């Protein structure tokens, strides 16, 4: 059987690895962007000079041959699903028995006048980074970044390292407040504003981009008319599944490629995973498209089972995510909405002087803990996940909060302060019983394992 995977991002690669681990089928992985898999979230580090581009590759180049995963660098132009055949840009073809679409996402543009000018780029692909590098080397003196998401702030950090002044246009009244609760959003906003050379413009939207007559960017114009002279406009107003090239086919598309619980599309032997997949029935509380790294990895693993005849529904488990805003680390576990739902309570603690904060969510009725939202403090995935999965009472969680702390050794533990603030808010008199450290965690996890069979 010939299994063909289009896309060598984290989704495609994870699928290929798990397929190889469990089968001897012929596997081919195709990508137009790069010959080898690389870590997309790490793109900024190559621009900033933290790493060379080859360091972004999680596997050495010989890994693929050794594991008999054929690599092909080419763009697939169309797919003849009836004939189970791919057609490449150069006209050549390839047949498949099973096809996995792991084609990722692309930068969203919103039909701004001037968006095709030289110097308007997203930051999603290797080619985007190369373009940023080229523009920086050639003529870039000021940059404008449009859209206050995670990619935008990474672009801002990139230019910041090269001492290129940035105007950062954000539609909302506070950075990323569609996702971050108000206090945290304010914290990040202030963090950005402290950065020299970053001009954060809240409640500002791009209206059009002007060229210099030679087809190069000269100016970004905001709604309301304010002008920002610049040589580069970075676009980060979100990404969208890369499916335009698949329209006009039998494949069922929505915002992304529609897939069922087993990651199957409407066509037999065709699967879709990662950023490009849209679940028809997502798990309760989850979105149909979750364009993050971890989704790609989990879907890649799941699809391998499904292709190999071990039907496995996609169960991403308890949500988690992380990011970094300049120097400010961010981690979440469970459900952490930016506004408090009716039936939930939350508790927020913020360090008096440093950019550190923690927010806990729990159910009003059952008191079960629902989520952890962390700024500048690291918490342990396994512990938070176990608490949420076991619907642990919030008071018990707070009592043992230290167990979750994952900050490096010698870092100050803030749990004492957090517990007393919690007591003050909730009128409880909880005493902190567990501190940071692996031994305690190991005991805790062992106890859980013996109590429930749900975990391995």
């Amino acid at each position, binding site marked *: 059987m010939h299994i063909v995977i289009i896309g060598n991002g*984290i989704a495609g690669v994870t699928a290929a690895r798990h397929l190889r681990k469990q089968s001897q089928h012929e596997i081919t992985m195709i990508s137009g962007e790069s010959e080898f898999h690389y*870590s997309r*979230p*790490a793109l900024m*580090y190559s621009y*900033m*000079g*933290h*790493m*060379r581009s080859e*360091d*972004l*590759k*999680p596997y*050495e*180049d*010989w890994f693929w041959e050794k594991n008999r995963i054929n690599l092909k660098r080419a763009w697939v132009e169309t797919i003849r699903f009836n004939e189970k055949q791919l057609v490449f840009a150069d006209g050549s073809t390839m047949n498949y028995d099973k096809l996995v679409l792991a084609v990722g996402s692309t930068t969203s543009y919103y039909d701004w006048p001037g968006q095709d000018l030289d110097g308007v780029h997203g930051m999603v692909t290797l080619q985007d980074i190369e373009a940023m590098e080229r523009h*920086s*080397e050639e003529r*870039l003196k000021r940059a404008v970044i449009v859209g206050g998401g995670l990619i935008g702030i990474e672009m801002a950090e990139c*230019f910041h390292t*090269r*001492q290129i002044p940035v105007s950062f246009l954000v539609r909302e009244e506070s950075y990323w407040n569609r996702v971050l609760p108000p206090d945290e959003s304010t914290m990040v906003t202030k963090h950005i504003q*402290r*950065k020299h050379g970053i001009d954060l413009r809240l409640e500002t939207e791009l209206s059009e981009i002007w060229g210099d007559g030679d087809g190069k960017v000269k100016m970004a114009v905001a709604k309301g008319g304010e002008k920002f002279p610049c040589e580069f406009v970075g676009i980060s107003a979100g990404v969208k599944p890369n499916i335009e090239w698949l329209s006009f086919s039998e494949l069922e598309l929505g915002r992304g490629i529609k897939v069922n619980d087993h990651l199957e599309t409407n066509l037999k032997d065709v699967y879709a995973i990662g950023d490009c997949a849209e679940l028809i029935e997502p798990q309760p509380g989850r979105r149909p498209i979750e364009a993050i*790294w*971890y989704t790609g*990895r*989990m879907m890649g*693993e*799941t699809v391998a*089972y499904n292709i190999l005849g071990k039907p*496995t529904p996609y*169960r991403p*488990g*308890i949500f*988690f995510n*992380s*990011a*970094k805003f*300049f*120097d400010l680390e961010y*981690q979440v576990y469970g459900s952490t909405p930016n506004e408090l739902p009716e039936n939930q309570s939350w508790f927020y603690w913020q360090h008096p002087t440093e950019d550190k904060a923690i927010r806990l969510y729990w159910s009003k009725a059952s008191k079960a803990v629902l989520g952890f939202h962390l700024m500048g403090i*690291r918490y*342990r*995935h*396994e512990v938070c996940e176990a608490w949420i999965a076991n619907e642990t009472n919030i008071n018990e969680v707070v009592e043992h909060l230290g167990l979750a702390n*994952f900050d*490096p*050794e*010698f*870092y*100050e533990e803030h749990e004492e302060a957090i517990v007393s603030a919690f007591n003050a808010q909730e009128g409880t008199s909880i005493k902190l019983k567990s501190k940071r*450290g*692996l031994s305690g*965690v*190991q005991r805790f996890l062992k106890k859980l394992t013996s109590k429930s069979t*749900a*975990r*391995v």
Partner: protein
Amino acid sequence: MSNKSVHKTGLQWLGLGLFCLALLLFTAMLGLESYTITSDVLPEGSNKYQKAAIAKAAKDLDFTGQTFGSPFEVKSAYHEVFTKAQGALEATFEKSGAPDDLGEWDFKLGDGYFKDQLFPLIRSSSTGPITANPWLWFGLTFGLGILGGLLYILPKFSADPGIKNDHIYHSPLTRGLTLTWRSVFLGFTIIGVLAYGVTYMSGQWVWPAVTAGVAILISVLIFIVQNSAKHTPQRSASPDMASGTLGILGGTYLIVFYLLLYWSPYLITPWVIMVNPLTEFLSGGSASQWSVYGTLYTVIVLVMGVRMWSKYQHNKYQLVRTGSVMFFQTGFAFLIPDLMSRLGGPSVDLKLIWPLDYSFFFDWNLNSLLDSGTFGIFLLGWGVALIVIGVPVLTYFYGKRWYCSWVCGCGGLAETMGDPYRQLSDKSMRAWKYERFIIHGVLVAAIVMTAAVLYHFFTGNAQIWIFNAYDIRKWYGFLIGAGFAGVVGTGFYPLMGNRTWCRFGCPLAAYLGLVQRYKSKFRITTNGSQCISCGNCSTYCEMGIDVRYYAQRGQDIVRSSCVGCGVCSAVCPRGVLRLENGDDTDQFRADETRAIHITADSVGIL
């Protein structure tokens, strides 16, 4: 045009300028002295006949009274004198034998004496600005260097907390070399050291040849038997060609420095003269080239330690750990030994452990300890206790980091002066293969060498079958002690990363590593599934561990080479890694199959 380097303030530029000036003066001062030969400075020989022969030859050849411009000239002129004196004694011996019941070799002048006396001769004949004003020169080099360094470093404390690796791969100082260029440098250095080794062993080519044979054997095993020829690394330190120009320059400077220090100290007497007052003040004795090295080493660890503090302000583990290596270098390696010799006892570095301290069981050391009464016996017991109790126990509880990145002097230099180069360690599978062969090979060599030395100590018999204990130990000291630990180990910082010695060569690291790998509570845990495979951890691992390989699967990292510097955890942008001491029975956490990407019930299928 964007700026591909970190912004520097005017003060920092001034600091950089002062530092460069200090380095220039430090280098140039080697040529500033002249050398006047008086009868007082002539070597005395080991008896009155040798003394007279040397004095006569010196007079005949007009050596005495002459002033030379460089140590080279002194060397060649003195060589003539020496040969003449040697010839005269030879002739006397032929004619009438040795007087006063002297043995033939006590009477004649052996070749080795020439080498031994060159350094004292040149040092004591030295006159000029440095001899006249050693403190001034100390100030102009050390003082100015420290001042410049601090001016450059201190403003960095005002930066925001956070990862500071911007432009490391843009800088010609820290970007490294391609695999090919690196191999060329390494190849030439190895061949050079082995070739010089033949001279060093007085023409005996056996041990250099054995060494070359072992090197070739290891390469054959790796390339052909283990099939690495097909697996050429893509992730070695290799931006375009040899564009790391300043790194090459820096590496070359360091290599030359070590060559002079170990094998031609007569060329660096101005440095010795410069630090002499300080050494006298501290220890009461006079300085040698090792005093220069010790002072320089300590100053570098301290100044670059301050830099480390500024770079990792946000990370308490780094602050404490760096403070620790600064303390152990200054106290244990630098001040305490001097104090000990001031008190008239044996002077030792109490934190050195065999087999890194390969001369611990040498006869002269054992004799000196045994002759020093209770204190000497205590020191002997202390050294042995560190080997048999200290290493296993502390490593069981804390991992090898308690030594390698908290206490050790080599580690101290690597973690301070070497920090800017940590990204240059080779992360490829091939490099890991070399590492395992070589480091365990050195451990075996150290044990064999020590066994031979002890056999000799207890039986008085230096000849073991066809091997000679003296030769073995001399070759080990030359190859491993000087060539590997010094020339390659430190000289290659800007070319192969800051832990080249610790990773590939140190036998103590190998021993600590075995304990860490098989019986220790220490591990690096990975935070569930949070890894985004970005590669910062692997890139900044000075030991060349591909941390990401484990992190992206949620595996704990239990590797013998990990020195627990904690930088992977410091640079991880997603808070994935933590150095921990836990329950060592939980070995499954480091299992390859540990997959926790999807929820438990689906993993059950695996």
